[in-house]
């Protein structure tokens, strides 16, 4: 393919090359001839950009910014061009090598589902690597150079330990797909130290990729900060709203100074990596920042659809006032834990959207939000009745958001199509167990047993049984009574039943 750049006021060939790169990266090298026209108006007050290509035609005007430094490669032009491409971009697959606990892992997020929306739920036992998958996605999407903001120590920990001291070189590859034709964006990141990385591609090309797709690689060297060439694919991703919320996502009045220096993109993913960090835009909830109008309306709409009617927004007085179950008026910080952790990430997502897409955000319509959202433990602190309904409500309220979430809750799991569930299991080849049936009709007990390998009765009665069998604890009749107490059998009735049973056994013995 060829990209021809014409302009009346872009003398620097390096800038033209950068523009070419942006288009190539954004379109994933689609082939055909492309023309990009960049014109500055005579009075230097506005820029006009037109992009023409096979199946693609887009023009846009934006005001010139004198104070922008032309030496940074006309970043504002690159940004403007990136913005002209669709926001409907979603993660298609993830491949890992020697990342955290994974020697090798390949996951697909685009499998056909009978339910609406783009959802993937990662289920697994503790230590199966659920959070690591989210971290890998966060890291891959952050890319170069922003991933470096996380700090060498954190990046270092992403590499798999081979023995007590040494770590492998970690490789992350995220493939994104945009809805317009021919868009496949491949982001690759390697984490290593002090070593030149072998030039051959780290992963074999998947057969589904057309041969013209150019593999773009990049090395991030934690020790020497190896500067790679300009990575156009991340330019394409930068315009997107990509947010990640770790299991310790937090809303407290403590000011988080550690992440103040991070770029916005890194701040919206930091809770995945740092358990003590704050959600960036939670400030609005806490009243340290005043809420902009589109944000306020958007947030109110999402909360109403997702957490209502139990939680409502009562008004804004130096921060948001919520009303819980139509009774108590509280500040965000005093919300019940479940609402607080859910409201905090929703607020953060809305604020991020308003920041990145101010034009689209004016409508304050949640259904307009395009984003990729990673949430660890989506059920965090939520009451079971809300756990049950959360995912269906989010599907309805935010249909254009791709969610990749983890959970331990069977009530949450029962809301996913079998193809949306990735069951991580270290004992299975390739670490992923394929579900051969839908679990939408399963009860929580059945999900615990079938998917999570545990039965739902408590361990205390197990202990009682063990002791009673050894003759050191309660007598068998007492344990049998405990077994028979149920919502329709009280303690007395159960006791009577066991006594009778005991008599019958004696009679039969004779």
């Amino acid at each position, binding site marked *: 393919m060829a990209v021809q750049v014409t302009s009346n006021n872009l003398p620097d060939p390096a800038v033209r090359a950068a523009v070419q790169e942006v288009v190539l990266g954004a379109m994933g090298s689609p082939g055909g001839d492309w023309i990009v026209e960049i014109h500055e108006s005579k009075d230097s007050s506005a820029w006009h950009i037109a992009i023409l290509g096979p199946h693609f035609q887009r023009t846009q005007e934006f005001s010139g910014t004198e104070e922008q430094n032309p030496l940074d490669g006309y970043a504002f032009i690159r940004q403007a061009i990136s913005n002209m491409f669709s926001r409907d971009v979603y993660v298609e697959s993830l491949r890992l090598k020697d990342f955290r606990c994974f020697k090798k892992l390949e996951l697909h997020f685009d499998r056909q589902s009978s339910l609406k929306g783009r959802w993937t739920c990662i289920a697994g036992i503790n230590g199966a690597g659920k959070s690591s998958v989210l971290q890998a996605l966060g890291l891959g999407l952050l890319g170069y150079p922003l991933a470096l903001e996380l700090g060498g120590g954190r990046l270092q920990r992403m590499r798999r330990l081979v023995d007590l001291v040494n770590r492998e070189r970690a490789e992350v590859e995220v493939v994104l797909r945009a809805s317009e034709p021919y868009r496949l964006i491949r982001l690759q990141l390697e984490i290593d130290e002090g070593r030149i990385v072998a030039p051959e591609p780290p992963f074999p090309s998947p057969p589904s990729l057309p041969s013209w797709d150019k593999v773009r690689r990049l090395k991030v060297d934690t020790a020497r900060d190896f500067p790679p060439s300009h990575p156009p694919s991340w330019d394409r991703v930068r315009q997107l709203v990509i947010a990640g919320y770790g299991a310790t996502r937090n809303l407290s009045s403590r000011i988080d100074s550690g992440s103040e220096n991070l770029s916005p993109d890194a701040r919206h993913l930091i809770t995945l990596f740092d358990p003590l960090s704050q959600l960036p835009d939670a400030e609005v909830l806490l009243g340290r920042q005043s809420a902009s109008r589109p944000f306020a309306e958007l947030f109110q709409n999402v909360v109403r659809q997702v957490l209502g009617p139990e939680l409502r927004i009562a008004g804004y007085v130096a921060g948001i006032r919520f009303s819980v179950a139509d009774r108590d008026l509280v500040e965000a910080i005093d919300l019940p834990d479940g609402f607080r952790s859910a409201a905090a990430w929703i607020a953060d997502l809305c604020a991020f959207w308003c920041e990145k897409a101010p034009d689209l955000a004016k409508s304050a319509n949640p259904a307009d939000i395009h984003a990729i959202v990673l949430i660890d433990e989506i059920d965090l602190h939520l009451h079971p009745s809300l756990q049950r309904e959360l995912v269906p409500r989010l599907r309805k309220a935010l249909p254009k958001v791709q969610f990749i979430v983890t959970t331990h809750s069977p009530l949450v799991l029962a809301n996913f199509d079998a193809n949306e569930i990735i069951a991580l299991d270290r*004992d299975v*080849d390739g670490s992923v167990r394929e579900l*051969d*049936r*839908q679990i939408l009709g*399963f009860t929580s007990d*059945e999900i615990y*047993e*079938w*998917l999570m*390998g*545990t*039965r*739902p*009765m*408590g361990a205390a*009665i*197990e202990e009682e*049984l*063990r002791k*009673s*069998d050894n003759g050191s604890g309660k007598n*068998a*009749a007492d*344990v*049998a009574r405990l*077994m*028979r107490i149920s919502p329709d059998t009280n303690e007395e009735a159960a006791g009577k*039943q*066991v006594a009778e*049973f*005991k008599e*019958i*056994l004696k*009679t*039969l*013995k004779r």
Partner: protein
Amino acid sequence: MRRLRRPQYPVPTLANNGIAGQRRINDCHEYERTATAPTSFPPYWTRPDVKGLLHAMQGRVCAYCGVAPRGLEVDHFRPKGAVGNGEAHGGYWWLAYAFSNYFLGCSICNGTRKGNTFPLVAGATRCTYQTRGTLALEKRVLLDPAEDPVEEWLTIDWDSVTAKLVPSPALGEAERSRVQDAIDLLHLNVGPEVRTQRSKAYEEAARAAVDRRWDDLRRGAMRHRPHSLAARTVLQRIAPERLPSAEDEAGDLADLIWGELRMLVSGIVDLRARGKPPRPFDERQLKALCWALFVLQSEAVSTNEHLAALLEREPAEIRTEMVALFRALR
């Protein structure tokens, strides 16, 4: 745990010219040539003919703990890929596609309890591919319900209202301790769900015995019913002559499978009336159920006649559908 009998019926997938059989032969050739054991095992054991045969052997009940969960998995009695405990034995890979190594198990027994472990009695040597001919002599801890007389070795302690499972008092000291190890390994006594269900089944059987409800007792003692050991223990003690025969059991299981099959078939007939194709999962299930029926039918003349009578009683629409299905699979 109850005694199981492996049906003698061909399984196309596992036959030497079947897809899994071919894989087995290749794995062995490869090992003899390069001394490397296979590392991946495509799950051919989930095919309908394999599952159908297992279904005919044990109904919908886990081979180990006796519960009837919603989903049953195909369990490799001897693990195929590793034997656990850090032992440098690559697993019984040559048994990955052997029917004699398969049971249906609940996900707890198969995954959580057994997993990749297969302990031997202290000091025993583990069988390898070279010594595979001596597999039957391997001193394993776990009981094989299709090989060992588990109903003679394991019994419910009569006086226990919590239906504690104990090694039979008739066994010698060494055997008793081995059986106890097998019980402990599978948590057959400490799993609270298993124990509660068994205790209630035991109570139900005892009450049926007092009331002389022999039919209920006999049904409860059928091995494809959950916790059949409870009713079996009671009958064995007070009226062993009333224990169900193999034919009774086959007939009852055929009835159950028929019920499931006709539900599926009428669902498919329904879908077709609305112009929709059957769901892929239903089709696999359907095939597995048919295989199970073929097996039961081949085993006893009485079952065959019983099934023919059941077919006669179905409405014409479902009958045609079922006949077509049987023909297609034969």
